[in-house]
């Protein structure tokens, strides 16, 4: 049973000067109880996609259903049963933690007590600060409060738009652990993120770029589809090295990746040929090692094609 079915969905923003195709013919399905990630850089169309699915924007083409309800026709039904956490912190800064939570419980016709079990894990972490105004919370705590508020009515599908953007590494890790626990409670979660490393934490992901979905599937299947060799290359002169790598006929693509450069090799070229080429180019100390492709490598390759 699909929780979210997206079929050929499009969104166009027309201004006087230009038209922007924010989302172009996007299709994917999210199964019930799945943790589905939309991965893509800023401006990929993630927020537009989420706003259409949460009935905040009307699509300009295609259709989609959330828990069986059409996003245009049955928008009122969808608003009863989804939870939505926008990218920007969108709670009342001048209300306390407790007041925010109670308010959102009431507008969803429920009480904090009735659904406390679902938010308990998250809420206990911010409960010591329940008398504090939301605006005075730290970034990580704001996220937890926003998540609690989005969950308080026990939504069937939870939409999280870039929940970890601007959150420190520890809080990010914690946040993903919370999502895993929520998944165990049977909530379908759609999460968008610009961080490639978070893709591995999702059941399935869709890689999105310039309004289009480049590839979708489990993180492993996306990585398996990558069938070139990737070599991590390092030398004294990193800047020169990248230029030499890009200039060489044997690489399909090369880009910097942490302290190494990644060289995506064409099939007919070997590691040895690369080594010889680089030494010739004046990198006597060059270090080359094979490496496993990850989502970011896949993304870079998909963007090329």
């Amino acid at each position, binding site marked *: 049973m699909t929780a979210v079915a997206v079929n050929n969905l499009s969104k166009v923003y027309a201004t006087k000067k230009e038209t922007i195709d924010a989302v172009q013919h996007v299709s994917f399905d999210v199964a019930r109880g799945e943790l589905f990630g939309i991965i893509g850089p800023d401006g990929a169309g993630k927020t537009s996609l989420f706003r259409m699915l949460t009935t905040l*924007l009307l699509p300009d083409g295609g259709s989609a259903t959330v828990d069986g309800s059409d996003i245009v026709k049955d928008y009122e039904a969808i608003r009863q049963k989804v939870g939505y956490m*926008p990218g920007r912190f969108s709670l009342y800064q*001048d209300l306390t933690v407790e*007041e925010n939570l109670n*308010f*959102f419980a009431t*507008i969803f016709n429920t009480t904090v007590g009735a659904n406390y079990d679902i938010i308990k894990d998250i809420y206990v972490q911010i409960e010591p600060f329940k008398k504090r*105004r939301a605006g005075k919370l730290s970034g990580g705590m704001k996220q937890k409060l926003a998540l609690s508020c989005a969950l308080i009515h026990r939504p069937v599908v939870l939409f999280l738009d870039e929940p970890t953007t601007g959150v420190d590494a520890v809080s990010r890790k914690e946040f993903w652990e919370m999502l895993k626990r929520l998944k165990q409670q049977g909530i379908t979660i759609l999460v968008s993120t610009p961080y490639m490393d978070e893709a591995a934490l999702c059941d399935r992901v869709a890689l999105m770029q310039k309004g289009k979905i480049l590839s979708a599937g489990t993180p492993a299947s996306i990585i398996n589809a990558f069938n070139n060799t990737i070599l991590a290359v390092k030398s004294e002169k990193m800047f020169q090295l990248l230029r030499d790598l890009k200039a060489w006929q044997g690489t399909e693509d090369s880009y910097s990746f942490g302290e190494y450069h990644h060289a995506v090799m064409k099939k007919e070229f070997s590691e040895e040929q690369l080594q010889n080429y680089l030494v010739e180019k004046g990198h006597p100390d060059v270090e080359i090692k094979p490496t496993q492709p990850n989502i970011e490598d896949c993304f870079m390759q998909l963007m090329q094609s």
Partner: protein
Amino acid sequence: MKQFISFVKKEFLHILRDTKTLLILLGMPIALIMIFGFALTTEVKNSKFAVLDFSKDAATEEIINELNASRYFDLVAALHTYQDIEAIFHKGKAKMIIVFPPSFKSDLQHFNTAPVQIIADASDPNVATTLTGYATTIIMDYQKRVTHDRKLPHTINTQVRMLYNPQMKGTYSFVPGVISMILMLVCTMMTAITVVREKETGTMEVLLVSPVQPIKVILAKAVPYLLISIVNIISILLLSVFVLDVPIRGSLILLLSESILFTITCLSFGLLISTLTDSQQMAMFISLTGLFLPTLMLSGFLFPIENMPMVLQVVSNIVPARWYYQIVRAVMIKGLPLITVWKETFILTGMTVFLLMASLKNFKTRLA
């Protein structure tokens, strides 16, 4: 209903936690009433005047004393020559000078006529006109007393009675004006801003993705400002009656109900603005230029509508404050019953219904 109460509670928390704004909202009417009541008055009181008396007899003395005794004039100097007139005006020590010719009293008694010259500093024409008017009236009063037993041939006596405001107090027209101004500011601007703020901070996005009906969001925003406005109306009325001596001649209940009606008109206006704009600045700008200025200029509070060019007179019809101002003047100052202001009341009600419908229709259930 529980949702609605929770919404209203939230709105109250927003207002109560923003103490500075709350103080301004509640303090502004008091400040405005005080400013308009005491400082910005068009009445002329204790104006300095001087005399150049070449006659110095019992009649001139009596006239001068009467001028000096009235609350409009204070005698500052007795001049001796015509040159002194120019000099005292230059120094700005007097606004008006009364000149009596020699043998004023005997001329009056023997020839039945005697001239008095009034010289006024007309660099401020309104003050000059008012002062010469007052002075003429006082001198005429004197003349009537002198001649009162004698039958003059062919005299027409104009008898003027200033009904409802015999002392011609400016506060009588300021109080209704200030009430409409305050209500415009508190209700229209603040309501518009508070709804738009939810759009700006993104909370509207979360509210939209919830089962709450738009009408609840909108009405809940209006409730606290309605209450603040009622407090303001009461404080203005109390100040008017006990500090400015402006009477409430008509029914207090009627006055309050009409004020609440106008409050709701203003609230609806604010809500309409909030549905049309996306930023607080824009909401403020529209409230100020689109509403506050017309209220000030076209309601008849500062400038009489009858004196305006035809176009502006027509435009003034769509300014709600114009009708409210007329109602308050009629009920408060003249003491008239509802039956005499039914037309104004009806127009205000119509405007309110129209504005409310428009804002509800305009309220977007989506972001764009």
